[in-house]
């Protein structure tokens, strides 16, 4: 047999791994190892205090420091994060939004300290606040000032850091919150249009720069398991973006109209049950965004097989990186021209998606665009509805999920033996970070810090660009919390609509009717309808579970109080008492369940309230056992997909508690 002729290979996409934890130093070591393993770009995961603008010693940061990402409190941290990583040679993607301007300022200042000029920097700040309100939940400020900060960064980078992507319009997170492909396309386009229109309205951005601004817009997509449809989605977005560029913004140069996007493949569909199957799901999803040469992703991040169990260890991440490398270097994928050009099937599907997405986009533009459709909750409500439909079809079996609602018999998995199949962040990380923060504060010059903060305040109040005074503040030794507090005082804080309205018709099968009857019956013995509080304590923004539990509880006839994300344990306790609920359900996915649940239990005890507490989320089994020992009535994790059964058990819990009284 003769060797097949080697064709010229296309350049592979950028390989990234979304990572960061504990401290800047530990994360720097991880990044350097990953680069040595053949990773070609960095993707920084920040911890929740950094993302929401709190210093490590702020009460809201308790239990969260260094947990789900790296804590960056000041310039020293940022320098430590990139020690021996020359910024002029790196392409860095930072998943940072509300505090994006600040983290970019720290990055610029770090570059300057390394002797690298801003113009040489390459990378991306995610900086997409619209999807934060809709899904990701690390927003801080109201929509208007948020749009202003985004457009400030666009205006600044287009001059000063021309190779920077100031915003990465994300539809990734929308799919993770339940979006259909059509919603993903439509809302991403609406979002990009909102940003471009905001930039175009600025006095300091001349009209002839708009094509360049358009060219700097990049996207961040998802790719789910229905990978043929995902192939078509990528192609549809590529075509739509080109049309928007030409028609709405008059961009002549086709190169500037190119749809540039990175991808993280779907994690929502990765399962806790038989987690090894996730490795295969991940490969198939990666195909969806690499298959088409004409619409191939520029950068790719793959989640790990143990996604639904907890944080990935270096080995888990390595497996995902190797998956990408096999796809790019062993297969012949990169040797061919576009495989689907001329395919009637693909073209028809692309047209279908485009048409439906255009209709939805027009609807959003008709209400005043993406910002208006955030404030009036339109988009969020549509996402919650889509997610309700998804979960219903998993429960009913209409949607097959192998290992979850079909083919559930399994041998014990050697991969998950023991409790060590995930990364455990050392509890000392928080204390040490606070120690570094204190030392840093002691070292800096307070007069310079005050002057820098005053400069920031003045610039913002006078409508000047946020970037220059932020860079000065970074050099002067301002901390993340101080920067964000300054903006909080000026702009105020925002709470986005929850989108939980439940317009979907009730499920009326036998199982649901039975639960409904039990809810009514227990309501009769209680004297009033069963009332539940669904609470999200802490900085955790994962709202899917809470939303769907709320929708379901209402569906079976409960009165549901759900006030959205980011409440303190004491707010939850007060709410439970004032609202007179019979049961509290807490949803926590960020890994800080131990501290937060204990605080709620303690709060209830000190108020003399005997309200049963149920917990759900990413809770490793040994932690679940501890929670139950402390009095938590039930603990649910992703494998508990049968929401009707969960509801039935909540009725049990309330009934038992009432019988005891």
């Amino acid at each position, binding site marked *: 047999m003769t060797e097949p002729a080697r064709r010229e290979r296309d350049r592979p996409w950028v390989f990234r791994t979304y990572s960061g934890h504990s401290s800047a130093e530990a994360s720097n070591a991880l990044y350097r190892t990953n680069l040595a393993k053949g990773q070609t770009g960095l993707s920084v995961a920040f911890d929740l205090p950094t993302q929401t603008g709190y210093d490590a010693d702020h009460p809201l940061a308790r239990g969260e420091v260094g947990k789900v990402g790296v804590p960056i409190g000041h310039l020293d941290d940022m320098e430590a994060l990139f020690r021996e990583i020359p910024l002029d040679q790196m392409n860095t993607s930072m998943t940072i939004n509300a505090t994006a301007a600040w983290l970019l300022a720290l990055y610029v200042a770090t570059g300057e300290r390394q002797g690298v000029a801003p113009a040489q920097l390459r990378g991306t700040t995610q900086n997409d606040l619209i999807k934060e309100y809709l899904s990701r939940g690390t927003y801080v400020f*109201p929509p208007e000032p948020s749009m202003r900060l985004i457009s400030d960064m666009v205006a600044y980078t287009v001059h000063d850091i021309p190779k920077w992507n100031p915003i990465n319009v994300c539809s990734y997170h929308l799919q993770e919150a339940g979006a259909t492909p059509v919603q993903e396309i439509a809302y991403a386009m609406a979002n990009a249009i909102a940003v471009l229109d905001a930039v175009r309205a600025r006095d300091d951005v001349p009209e002839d720069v708009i094509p360049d601004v358009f060219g700097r817009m990049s996207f961040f997509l998802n790719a789910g398991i229905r990978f043929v449809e995902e192939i078509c989605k990528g192609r549809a977005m590529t075509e739509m973006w080109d049309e928007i560029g030409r028609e709405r913004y008059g961009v002549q140069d086709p190169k500037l109209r190119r749809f540039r996007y990175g991808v993280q493949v779907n994690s929502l569909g990765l399962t806790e049950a038989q987690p090894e199957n996730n490795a295969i799901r991940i490969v198939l999803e990666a195909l969806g965004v690499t298959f088409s040469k004409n619409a191939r992703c520029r950068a790719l991040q793959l989640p790990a097989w143990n996604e639904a169990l907890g944080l990935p260890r270096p080995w888990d991440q390595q497996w995902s990186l190797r998956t990408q490398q096999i796809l790019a270097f062993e297969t012949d994928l990169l040797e061919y021209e576009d495989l689907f050009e001329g395919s009637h099937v693909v073209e028809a599907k692309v047209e279908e998606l485009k048409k439906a997405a255009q209709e939805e986009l027009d609807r959003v533009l008709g209400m005043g665009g993406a910002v208006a459709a955030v404030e*009036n909750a339109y988009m969020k409500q549509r996402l919650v509805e889509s997610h309700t439909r998804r979960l219903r079809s998993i429960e009913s079996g209409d949607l097959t999920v192998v290992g979850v609602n079909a083919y559930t018999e399994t041998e014990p998995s050697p991969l998950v033996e023991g409790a060590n199949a995930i990364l455990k962040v050392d509890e000392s990380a928080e204390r040490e970070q606070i120690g570094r923060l204190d030392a840093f504060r002691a070292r800096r010059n307070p007069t310079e810090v005050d002057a820098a903060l005053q400069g920031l305040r003045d610039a913002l109040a006078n409508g000047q660009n946020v970037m220059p005074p932020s860079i000065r503040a970074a050099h002067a030794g301002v901390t993340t919390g101080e920067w964000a507090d300054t903006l909080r005082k000026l702009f105020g*804080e925002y*709470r986005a*609509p*929850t989108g*939980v*309205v*439940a317009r979907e018709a*009730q499920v009326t099968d036998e199982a649901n009717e039975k639960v*409904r009857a039990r*809810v*009514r019956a227990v*309501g009769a013995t*209680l*004297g*009033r*309808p069963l009332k539940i509080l669904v609470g999200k304590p802490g900085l955790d923004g994962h709202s899917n579970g809470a939303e769907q539990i*709320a*929708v379901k*509880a*209402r*569906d*079976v*006839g*409960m*009165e*549901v*109080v*759900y*006030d*959205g994300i980011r*409440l*303190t344990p*004491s*707010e939850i306790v*007060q*709410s439970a*008492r*004032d*609202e*007179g609920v019979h049961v509290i359900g807490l949803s926590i996915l960020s890994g800080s369940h131990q501290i937060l649940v204990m605080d709620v239990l303690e709060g209830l005890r000190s108020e003399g309230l005997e309200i049963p507490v149920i917990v759900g989320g990413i809770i490793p089994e040994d932690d679940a056992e501890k929670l139950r020992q402390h009095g938590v009535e039930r603990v649910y994790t992703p494998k508990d997909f049968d929401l009707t059964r969960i509801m039935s058990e909540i009725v049990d819990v309330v009934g038992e508690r009432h019988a005891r009284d």
Partner: protein
Amino acid sequence: MTELGPRLLARDRSAVAPALNLVDDRRPAARREAAVLLAELEAKIGRGGAPRIGLTGAPGAGKSTLLDALVRRRRAVDETVGVIAVDPSSRRTGGALLGDRIRVRSGAGDPGVFIRSMAARDQLGGLAEATRAGVLVLSAAFDWVLVETVGVGQSEGEVADLVDTLVFVAQPGAGDLLQFMKAGILELPDVFVVNKADVGAAAERTRRELEAGLGLGERDAKWTPPVLAVSARDGIGIDALDDTLAAHRRALGAEGLAARRSRGRDAAVRAGLVARYGSFGLEALGGTEALERRLAAAPGEPGFALLETLGNEIRAALGDRAAGS
């Protein structure tokens, strides 16, 4: 004397939630206890207690945001506020989503603010009875009571009977206004607010249209309902609204307030009797005219006490066949 009554009147915050739970409880023993508590409170503060302000208007008009702004105003001068938010979307089959607190951030963690959301449970007179009991409890324990309800065309009458001052919240764009004008709803509110004034000219246009529209209706000579433009979001016009609420209270005077409360009492007794015993029960009492005579004959009597007395009479007349559920 109940245990909760004196505690509420002494403004013991920890008595508020149990009291609200009690007045909502439909078990016979609880209902008896609640009736005593409510009659007791009404006797003490039926003509006094906290000022009661209602906010009504279409969904999305900005009632919750405005409520938040008003709560902040009160808290800034150290006055306490009790809030009842009635959920618009409750279902026939039971079940309700009560997430309206999301935009009411002023209360979070502050003991000077109390928020209870309630489902409009779709029983006859349901809104009025449960909410009225709640309002009474809150007006014993707090300096101010605010009630948010969705105005969908029929409930304004009920809310107007619950509060001392009814504020109608509209948003720029006259579409819904025309509808309300047609439905004759605009006769009820004491103050009109066009919210979202930050959007600019459209708000001022709506304000003028509304003012012109109101000029056509018949009104009480002592008080002409003003139309204010505010931005709940940006805190613009809130001071003026606050002043207007105070002005309305002054215009009402002790007499006006008493008349208003007694109108509310009468409405609640009527609705309560019909909800519990149906028109059949009302017949047993001698019909509507008889009921009106009884109401007129007992001007000082607490509504909740009257409801019990009349209920007993009906039950006796019916030979206890239609005992309250």
